[in-house]
């Protein structure tokens, strides 16, 4: 029971502002071109022709954090890399999201030692965790779709 039903076909649709802004955000979410370890290989596979992440609005990886919306943490985060990653995250303009790809980024994985941060959520606020060692490209794409659902649920008060 929208306005268009009462007024006839006037050539427009009604929706909420939240819906349309969130829709536009999810349809062109550009990830940052950053890979830390072997998960990056799967990320590249997800980008390339066979799995083709651009079907979901990720046309290209941006090499500059200033132009990207999503940080895919693909691989284990070393103690030395963590400040660099945090800096990249801080350089990204809002709205921005973080996807922790694989076991190592999510909780340290098999690397329970002095060199590796036990979960990237100690340095970055993570939105979606993708399990796997490494996750298959389908799993990464599923994680991204879950992130889209999350973004689509965001209210106007949560917008950055």
């Amino acid at each position: 029971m929208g306005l268009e039903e009462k007024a006839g076909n006037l050539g427009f649709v009604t929706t909420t502002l939240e819906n349309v802004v969130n829709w536009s955000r999810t349809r062109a979410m550009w990830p940052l071109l950053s890979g830390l370890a072997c998960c990056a290989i799967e990320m590249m596979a997800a980008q390339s022709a066979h799995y083709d992440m651009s079907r979901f609005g990720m046309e290209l990886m941006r090499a500059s954090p200033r132009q990207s919306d999503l940080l895919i943490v693909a691989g284990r985060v070393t103690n030395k890399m963590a400040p660099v990653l945090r800096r990249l995250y801080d350089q990204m303009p809002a709205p921005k999201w973080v996807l922790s790809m694989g076991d190592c980024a999510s909780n340290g994985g098999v690397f329970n030692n002095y060199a590796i941060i036990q979960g990237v959520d100690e340095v970055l606020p993570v939105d979606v965790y993708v399990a796997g060692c490494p996750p298959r490209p389908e799993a990464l794409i599923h994680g991204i779709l879950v992130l889209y659902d999350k973004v689509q649920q965001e209210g106007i008060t949560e917008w950055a």
Partner: protein
Amino acid sequence: MGNNLQKAAEIIQEKYNGEINSFRDQITLLLSKDSIVEVCQILRDDFSFGVLVDETVVDYWRRKEPRFQIVYQLHSRQHDERIFLRTPVSDDDPFTSSVVSIYPNANWYEREIWDLFGIRFEGHPDLRRILLPKGYQGHPLRKDVPIKVEETRFTFNNDELARGKPLAKE
């Protein structure tokens, strides 16, 4: 075994009271740490061992006394021969002499040894950490450093351990 290598080993053993270990034509000389610089000098200048292939250290914690052994691998391109030197270093105040003045590429090897095992090199021009981040405490490749930094989380203790974990803010 080459003539050059045999001769070098004999002379070093005689002059510096080194202990020769031979295994399948591979010669290892066990030397005291006071003589290592001179031995390297002689091997480089008189026996053409011009390449320091690797310099590393073994931690024999609870297995041998003194605890550390620094290993030098030298190679002679002229004769295609290799010789191995070992110097024991004790645990309390571990230090030895730097061979940077003879083999300049020892610079980074010795920095790595300092970084991961905490053995000082007297006479090193720039002894600071090379792999670990600035401000890191300790020397993590020593055998007495615990391997795990965090308790492994299973279903039964996940909630308890996750509560103590610091999470990043926006």
